[in-house]
C-alpha cells in the first residue's frame, strides 16, 4: 500500500476546471516533483491534498485512510507537512516560536497547564524548545532564533518555513517552490538541506519547482502539469526530452 494515494481528483473553481483527473502515488522515502507553467494548478493540487480546498471529485488516501473533508490542521497533524510558495510566516512571532508553534497538536498540558503554569507545562515547553533548536540547527539558522521574521532575508525565511514544516513530524513533506527568490549559492544550500532531512527523517517529499537543475537532481520521477492535467510523467531524462513538455513551456512554433 502506498503512503499517499491521490485518485482521480478533479476540482472546479466555479465554472473553471482547475485540476482534472489528477493521480499521484507516493511511497515512503520517495522524492517526486511537479512542474508546469504558471497557472497550471500546481499549488491548487497542494491545497487539495493538505485540506485547504476540498476536491470536487476523487479521493485522497493517506495510509489507506480517506482524508477528503478533514480540516487542514487534522491533515497536518496526521503527517502531511508543507511549506508555502509565498512565505506564509507570522509577522509578530519570532523564529523559535514559529517552530515551536508547529508542535501545537502534540502538546498535552492542555488549558490547565496554559493557565496555571504547571510543572508539566514547563517541562513540555522545554522539550519543544529543545526540538525546535535542533531543527533550526539542522537548517542552519539557529543564530536567528530570537529574531522576528520581518527582519530577516528571504533565504533565511525559506529555511524557517522548512524547519517549521519539519516540526509537525511529517511523513510526507510538500515543498512549494522551496528555492523561489534564492540566489545560486542559497539554492545549493537548500538542496543540501532537502537531501539531509530526506535522509534523517526518511521523508517522502513532493515538490513544486521551476528550476530544472534542482528538480532534475533531486527527483526520482516528475509530473508535468498543464492547465490542470498531467501531460507527462517519468524520470527527469524522459521529461526533459518529451516533446509535449517542451511544447508546453516554449510554445508550438519554437519546437517546430
Amino acid at each position, binding site marked *: 500500500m502506498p503512503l499517499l494515494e491521490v485518485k482521480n481528483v478533479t476540482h472546479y473553481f466555479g465554472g473553471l476546471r482547475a485540476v482534472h483527473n489528477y493521480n499521484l502515488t507516493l511511497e515512503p522515502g520517495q522524492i517526486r516533483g511537479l512542474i508546469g507553467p504558471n497557472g497550471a494548478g500546481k499549488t491548487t493540487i497542494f491545497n487539495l491534498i*493538505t485540506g*485547504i480546498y476540498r476536491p470536487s471529485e476523487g479521493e485522497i488516501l493517506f495510509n489507506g485512510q480517506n482524508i477528503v473533508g478533514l*480540516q*487542514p*490542521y487534522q491533515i*497536518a*497533524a496526521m503527517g502531511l*507537512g*508543507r511549506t*508555502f510558495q509565498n512565505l*506564509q*510566516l*507570522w*509577522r*509578530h*512571532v519570532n523564529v523559535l*516560536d514559529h517552530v*515551536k*508553534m*508547529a*508542535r*501545537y*497538536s*502534540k*502538546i498535552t*498540558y*492542555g*488549558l490547565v*497547564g*496554559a*493557565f*496555571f*503554569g504547571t510543572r508539566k*507545562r514547563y517541562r513540555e*515547553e522545554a522539550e*519543544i524548545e529543545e526540538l525546535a533548536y535542533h531543527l533550526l540547527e539542522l537548517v542552519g539558522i539557529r543564530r536567528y532564533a530570537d529574531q522576528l521574521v520581518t527582519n530577516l532575508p528571504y533565504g533565511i525565511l525559506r529555511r524557517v518555513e522548512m524547519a*517549521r*514544516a519539519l*516540526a*509537525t513530524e511529517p511523513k510526507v513533506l510538500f515543498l512549494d517552490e522551496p528555492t523561489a527568490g534564492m540566489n545560486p549559492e542559497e539554492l545549493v544550500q537548500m538542496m543540501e538541506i532537502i537531501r539531509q532531512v530526506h535522509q534523517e527523517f526518511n521523508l517522502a517529499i513532493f515538490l513544486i519547482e521551476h528550476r530544472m537543475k534542482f528538480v532534475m537532481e533531486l527527483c526520482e520521477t516528475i509530473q508535468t502539469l498543464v492547465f490542470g492535467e498531467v501531460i507527462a510523467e517519468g524520470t527527469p531524462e524522459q521529461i526533459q526530452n518529451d516533446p509535449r513538455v517542451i511544447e508546453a513551456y516554449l510554445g508550438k512554433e519554437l519546437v517546430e
Partner: protein
Amino acid sequence: MAVAVQDLTPEKSALRRLWERVQGPFLHVPMLSWLVGALVAVLIELSVGNNLARLIGLPKAPVLFGVSLILKEPVLVPAAIVYIVLVYLAPVALVARGTAGWANRTVAKLLDTIPAWVVILIHLLLLYAVLHFWAEVNTYRLLVLRLTMIAIVLTVSLNVVNGYMGEFSCSHPGFMALGAYGASVFSLLFFVDDRIFGAPILPPALGPFLFPLGLIAGGLLASVGALFVAIPSFRTRGDYLAIISLAFTFIIKSVIENLEVVGGPRGLGGQPDWATLPVVFAWTVLAVWIINNFVRSTLGRALNAVRDDETAASAMTVNTRRTKMTAFLFAAFWAGIGGGLLAHVLKYVNPGSFGLQALAEVLAMVYFGGLNSVVGSMVGAVGFNLLSEALRPLEIFKWIIIPVLLILVMIFRPTGLIAFREFDVLKIIRPKHTAEGDTDHALTGS
C-alpha cells in the same frame, strides 16, 4: 530639509542626555528598593501629609498628586510641586538609592534559596502595603484605586481578543453586565435580606468567603454569553465579530432593562461591601497572572499565528477555531469577573452603565496601552483611569484632552504605548547591576 534635520538632532540628543542623567543614578535600583521607597513615602504622607500640606499653604493633602487641585486653583502650583517633591519624589529617590545595594544582595540571595514564586509574593505584598497605606488617606483614593484595578482586569482580558487574536470585539460591556448581574444576584439571593429576593438563604456571615464563587458564576455566565457571539462569528474571518459583538452588547443591555426581576432600568442595589481593596487586588493579580501565563504558552501564542496568517496556522496543526473560541470565552470570563467586582465596589448596577461609554473607555485603554501586551494594558488602564480622574475638574474639556491624547498616541505609536512586549515578572524583580557590575561601588562612587 537638511537644515531642519540638523536642527532637530541635537535637541533630541539633549533631551536624551537629560533623561540619561536623571536615570543614571537609578539604573542599579531593583524593584524591591522602589517598593520600599514608595512604602516610606506613603507612610510619611499618612502620618504628616495633612499637616505638611497646611504648612505650605495647601488646604489638605492633595488627593491625586495635586493634579485636580492645581487645575482648580492654578495659584497653588508651586505649593503642590513642593508637596510632591517633599512627600513623594525625595523619599522615594533617597530610599530607593540608599537601599539599592542591600536590596540587590537580598533579592539575589532570596532567588537562590527560596522558590521564585515566594519572592514574587513578597514583592506583591509590599506593593499591596503601598497601595493600602496610600488609600488610607481618604476614601476617594480607595475608590479610584479599586476601579483602576478592575479596569486592569478588563483591559488585559480585552487585549487577548483585540490584541493577541487580532479580532475586533465590542462585547466587553455585555460580558461585564452579565458578570455584574450574575454576581449581584448571587450575593443578594443567598446572603442579603433584600427587597427583590427576600430573606437570605444562607447565613450572611458566610458571604465574604463564598463571594469568589459568585464572581466565578458571573464569569461563567459571561462565557456562556460569549458562546452566542463566538459560534456565528468565528465560522468565517472578517468583520463579523465586530458587528455581532456590538449587537450583543445592545441586546444584553435591553434584555436587562426589560427584566423586572433584576430591577429593570432602575438597576440593582444593595450589594454587600465585599469587594474590599485586598479582594480586588487579589483578583487583579490572579487575572494578570493567569492571562499572562496563557499568552506566553505555545497554546496561547497560537493566537498570534491565527492573527498573522490563519492558513499557515492550520497547516502547522493549529486548531484555529478552537483556539479562537477558547480565547474569546476566556476573555469573556475575566470581563465577567471584572463586572462582578465593579458591582460590589459601587454597590449598585444599572444597565445604562454597560453601554457605548463603557465600550469606548475599555477600547481606549487597550489601544492607548498597547496591543499584544499585558504590561501595555496595565499601563493603559492605570494611565487612562488616573488621567480621567485627575482631569475631572476640567469637566467638559476633559473629553477634549483625552481624545486628543489618544489621537497623538495613535499617530506616533500606532499600536499603542507598549505594544508587543512580553511581561516577565522575574525580569522586573531581579537584581540590577550597573555597567561596572559592582553595586556597592556604584553606590559609594558617586
